[in-house]
């Protein structure tokens, strides 16, 4: 049985749909805009599924991410899902999530989707402020968002997540608060609120490196973070991970929790990462190589690594400190011995607290999770 906070120790399945209509200038996930390769990608994907057939017994989450999974046609989507269900054992109460772009889903798409196992939709709203959406280079506007949420609710979807972005250059706190208020009016089961991060290699990241884009300063970003957390918690949302909020414990993203809890996951598709035990491996971030490798009966592996105990320990600390479940306070192996001083000071300073035998970050602690991991 899945516990109340929707975390489990069964493996999760991730499928990367590497196709987008347009590339967003800040996005660092692998995708291409040429969608002609979709059919061969589906064939390759099904071959890759066969590679792992029998290796993973039982998945209790499936996550279709991207890219933009909602660019797939109903037939294409059905082929992907059928492939997964044929190759793997997937539990009856499986959380099956699809990421969707507002504006991509219409009544036809939804009536099809209702007949699939997909029971959770994560909508890339990003903002209800059209100026912010335009700055981010999104192809939808705030009206598309409203329409999509309405459609989802009307077709009976009772587990909806919305993605939002803050600390966008030029975005005022006022604009962000307006977006937050509107998001709350829709009472989504899940909210992801990300600070805009500019990665090197993205167009916006390059503009930032050239000094043409200025991000808000640390104090401002901290204010965005705290305001968001306080406002959402006021409405009963649980700030359960740095950027994630659930309306109730049961609405946590069961799939994403696996990443932070070191639970096994299998990632399929170009650039997807997998983790099991102390092994991690990932695929080429290239649709062509992915397809051609699988056509030649090769695994499309880019790289693999074996994690040492030390690596695993560090991951458990830095991933654990991202969630309100924190880390095991009774496991001395988790800490560098000289860190005890710092641990005590973090506790005294209200960045961490003891809860049920665990050391968990407070709201201020979440904002500093990386620093904490470096120090502890």
């Amino acid at each position: 049985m899945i516990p109340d906070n929707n975390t489990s120790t069964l493996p999760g399945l991730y499928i990367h749909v590497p196709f987008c209509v347009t590339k967003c200038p800040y996005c660092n996930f692998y995708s291409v805009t040429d969608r002609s390769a979709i059919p061969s990608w589906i064939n390759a994907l099904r071959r890759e599924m066969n590679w792992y057939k029998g290796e993973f017994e039982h998945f209790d989450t499936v996550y279709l991410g991207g890219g933009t999974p909602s660019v797939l046609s109903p037939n294409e989507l059905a082929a992907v899902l059928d492939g997964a269900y044929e190759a793997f054992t997937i539990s009856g109460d499986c959380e099956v999530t699809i990421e969707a772009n507002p504006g991509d889903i219409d009544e036809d798409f939804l009536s099809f989707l209702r007949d699939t196992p997909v029971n959770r939709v994560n909508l890339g709203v990003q903002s209800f402020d059209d100026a912010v959406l335009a700055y981010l280079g999104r192809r939808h506007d705030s009206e598309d968002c409203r329409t999509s949420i309405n459609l989802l609710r009307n077709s009976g979807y009772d587990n909806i997540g919305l993605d939002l972005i803050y600390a966008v250059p030029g975005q005022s706190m006022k604009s962000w608060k307006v977006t937050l208020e509107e998001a709350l009016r829709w009472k989504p089961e899940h909210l992801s609120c990300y600070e805009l991060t500019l990665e090197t290699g993205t167009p916006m990241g390059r503009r930032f490196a050239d000094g043409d884009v200025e991000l808000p300063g640390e104090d401002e970003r901290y204010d965005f973070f705290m305001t968001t957390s306080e406002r959402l918690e006021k409405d009963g949302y649980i700030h359960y991970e740095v950027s994630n909020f659930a309306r109730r414990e049961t609405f946590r993203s069961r799939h994403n929790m696996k990443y932070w809890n070191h639970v096994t996951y299998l990632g399929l598709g170009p650039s997807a990462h997998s983790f099991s035990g102390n092994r991690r491996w990932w695929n080429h971030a290239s649709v062509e190589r992915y397809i051609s490798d699988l056509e030649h009966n090769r695994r499309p592996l880019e790289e693999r690594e074996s994690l040492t105990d030390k690596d695993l320990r560090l991951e458990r600390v830095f991933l654990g400190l991202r969630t309100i479940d924190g880390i095991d306070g009774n496991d001395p192996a988790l800490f560098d011995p000289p860190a005890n001083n710092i641990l005590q000071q973090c506790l005294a300073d209200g960045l961490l607290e003891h809860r049920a035998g665990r050391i968990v970050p407070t709201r201020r602690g979440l904002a500093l999770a990386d620093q904490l991991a470096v120090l502890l």
Partner: protein
Amino acid sequence: MDSIRNFSIIAHIDHGKSTLADRMIQLAGLTNSRTFRDQILDTMDIERERGITIKSQAITLPYRAQDGGTYYLNLIDTPGHVDFSYEVSRSLASCEGVVLLVDAAQGVQAQTLANLYLAMEHDLEIIPVINKIDLPAADTERVMEQIENELGLDPFGSILCSAKEGTGVPDIMEAIVQRIPPPRGDAGKPLSALIFDAQYDAFRGTVVFCRVFDGIMKAGQAVRFMHNDTVYRVEEVGRFSLVREKKEQLEAGDVGYLIAGIKNVADVSVGDTITDDHRPCAAPLPGFKEAKPVVFASIYPIASDDYEELVVALEKYKLNDASFTYQKDSSVALGQGFRCGFLGLLHLDIVQERLEREYDLSIILSVPSVRYRFILKNGETVYIENPAHYPESMSIEKAEEPYIRATMMFPEQYLGAVMKLCIDRRGENSHINYPSPERVELQFELPLSSVIYDFYDSLKSLTQGYGSFDYDIIDYRESDLVLLDILVNGEKVDALSQIVNRAVARERALNTCERLKEEIPRQMFKIAIQGAVGGEIIARTTISAFRKDVTAKCYGGDITRKRKLLEKQKKGKKRMKMVGSVSIPQSAFVSVLKSDKG
């Protein structure tokens, strides 16, 4: 003996001493250009980079003079910095003459004067040489005037030279033969030889550099080092070509080396007299002084795991540097380390750099201190150079600190600025001389503690590089001393404690706090940095806390990348010193050391 000439080249830093020495070595045919490395006498990398000679060395240059005779010119190199003036004086005591090198563009500097006075004390023949005449800024006439008016030498005896281009060098060789007298001495008398340097050789032990005044020294002989009162049996003597060249014997007038199974350089004192154990000379040669460190600081490894490596590195370093002293020390903040003594700040810099470079160590140096003198109420006198040993304030009757007489030379227009600098540094009893109309020689008595940090740097920047500086330690004077402690989040960082004069305590405290604020990176907690004297806070700064440091997205693909990033950061943290829960980078300690004013 008539074919021997013993001489030194004395010059201000950068006036071209090493280049001239190289040219002479080339002219003597000891090296061809293929094997020729620039500036052969400065063997250590640091010397080469800084252009200063730290350790004196010697070399014998065979030279066929115009009179047809073959002469052996013994060039005894001297260190070119105020920290090493005692070594200079011992080298000069081994000579009959000097080549006084003056830069044709820069003219006479304070150091030139100081070295000239030393040479005059030893009654040496002086050959003025104006170097760098090839420079566009060369002003030979002005320098000739300076040589006449400021140095009181006959300007027409000056030789014009460009060591870089090699012009004038044969004239210098010829002048050495003709004008410097051959050594006098009596090979039949009991042995007396002056030690002017020593170096460590991994295979042979200590190689002692000396000048024989009377008598003979040869293998098998039992010799006594008179001040150290130790006896050794001579294994080998010889002179220096580019490498050691074994000889049957060294006799009166010779400059050469001695190997006698001496384990440590520290067993040899520069300035000591070597005599025959069975037939000693009547008295040691005059002028012996123990080279005493005047600046002290503690050295700690950044990572306490490196302590053993530091021990080994210091032992090895000490082999070749007798004037460097060290003993165990420990700090609450920085752990196990060593309290070290240096001849001056330059010496300290060199030791730090060599430890880091040659032994690949990351070290932290505490704030340097001079040796203070306290007369206690119980009548006892104690010398304290470590703030950790500062006496109970109730027990102190009188506190004193060492003073120097500083001699500075610079163009007259900077007089006001330099006067102000000296007065700011608690200078007193000034003396002004005008060796020539536009140039000032300014003397000041100053607390040594106020010049050991950046005095020379300040002087140079105030005078746009034209100021030069030299000093002698004169005496101890009463001073109102206090112990300044630096607290980081309430914890005393003992390595930052300093003994200071009360008048400058607040300024020093503020300065230290500000420096630390600039160098300590923001952390998760607010950090209070305080300066305190006897429990009273006299300065305070704070570093505001980090508030946001977390990756927004961390899913499947981000975890490996993120872990690697954090590993790197963790490694960086390990290179910092933890004081309580605050990480202090090495640069913070260094910045306090570099920037303080007395």
